[in-house]
């Protein structure tokens, strides 16, 4: 086994996903298969090779520190399910 049921449960919780027992079984099996497949790469000798972080051969894309127009409060809040004055309104957060 490359991944356990409880690990899948943990990852689901971190992603705020609620899974039923049967879903957990299904995904555990599927993810195990995926990991086993990817594991084949470990057969290669990657000693001294810098891990690939990006798929595109590009670097140093910068923006000068010059202000651009913002979109405005109304546009920002247009898709918000709830608002209060100029704020996004969310369920009460208790720290």
């Amino acid at each position, binding site marked *: 086994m490359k991944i356990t049921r409880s690990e899948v449960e943990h990852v689901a919780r971190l992603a705020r996903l609620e899974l039923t027992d049967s879903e957990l079984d299904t995904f555990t099996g599927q993810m195990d298969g995926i990991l086993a497949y990817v594991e084949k790469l470990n057969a290669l000798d990657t000693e001294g090779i810098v891990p690939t972080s990006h798929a595109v051969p590009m670097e*140093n894309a910068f923006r000068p*520190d010059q*202000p651009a127009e913002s979109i*405005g409060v109304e546009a920002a809040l247009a898709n918000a399910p709830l608002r*209060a004055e100029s704020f*996004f309104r969310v369920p009460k*957060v*208790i*720290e």
Partner: protein
Amino acid sequence: MKYQVVIGLEVHTQLTTNTKIFCGCSTRFGAEPNSQTCPVCLGFPGALPVLNKQVVENAILAGLATNCSITQRNVFARKNYFYPDLPKGYQISQFDLPICQHGHLDIEVDGETKRIGITRIHMEEDAGKLVHADIPGVDDSCVDLNRACTPLLEIVSEPDMRSPDEAIAYLKKLHQIVMYLGICDGNLEEGSFRCDANVSLMPVGSTVFGTRAELKNINSFKFIKQAIEYEIERQAEILDDGGKVIQETRLFDPNTGTTRSMRGKEEAHDYRYFPDPDLVPVLIPDQWIEDVRATLPELPEAKRARYVAELGLPEYDAEVLVSSRELAAYYEETVALFPQAKTVSNWVMGEVSRALNEDNNRSITDCPVTPPLLADLLKLMEKGTISGKIAKTVFDEMYKTGKAPEKIVEEKGLVQVSDTGAIEAMVDEVLKNNPAQVEQYRGGKETVFGFFVGQVMRASKGKANPALVNELLLKKLQS
């Protein structure tokens, strides 16, 4: 049992760039909620972040000033967690390749120098702000995303500090440096310089660190000290009772001076970092580092040493004058015009600082008595046009009106009297009016001399040249 405290600090400094780290929205403080937002900082799907070049330059500057090595291949990573102030569900940060590493700062506590390691400095975006707004009928939390995507440098120290005083000394030094560099406005209350403290205890003599608590929400140097002191007490009590300290995040409450557990954020410690595919790597060639190095200002430590070695100032003066870059600049500008280092230092630390303090802690950059004006005043004093005492009166008038010292001296008739005849007349008058004291003096009680000087100065309204007064008095009394 006796415990040794071990402290490591994480400081978030908000950079003074005009725009956010990944979009062109303004970073100005205090605007209408959500008015400084766009698809990038709101985390709208499909929006692409583009890195603000100034952030990289500021980070290199901070690294050079704290003796770090600069990482030449940088990658941004996503730090995944859910919180209502984080619109994307991840924070763009750096993980295994931070821009600066392996630095240090030397601090001084009780006359001893100690080196505090800096593990890393990395670039990241800030989250938005959760507000419990006072809006009638709204008991929910409110989110303002103006701050979301504001550039931060997170500066992480090694767990090298062994007392609250060392922690404060390190923080003050770091604060001074980022202010000197001009990359952070240093405002603790507005959250431009935020500190989290990792605090743990171990038995004295041990080398194995205990379990730490991470203290958050501390926005003044005083509170940092309070929070650490409280935490030492709390953990010592647990350990004394045979209990175990739990690794957790604790919130400092400035009203009670205590810390309390922050349950909400506990589960999120598994951040599942991975490289952000939206941002390409940042390569920093040697030349870029050298170009930034060339813009490094003289830092407080070097400045202080130079004031002592080259200007001959006492350590104390040097320390006070370099406390802010602006004060040091004011001092240096004045000394350039009136090259008597100690005299200028006395005036800057004395009259100038006093006047600013009394004026609601006005900033030195805003001082009505500018360096050229102060230098002119000191020149008048040096030439003997006015006495030191009168100079202080003139200074106060200059501070109030912004007028040139010559003009004030002329308008108020404050020119020092160095006319021997005029002073002699006053001396004669004073001696004539105080025969008893003259008798005492001649009888050997020389301490009354000061009395005569005072009387003559009063008669001249402080304008008589004190050296001449002394000379003439002596001559008359001994004749």
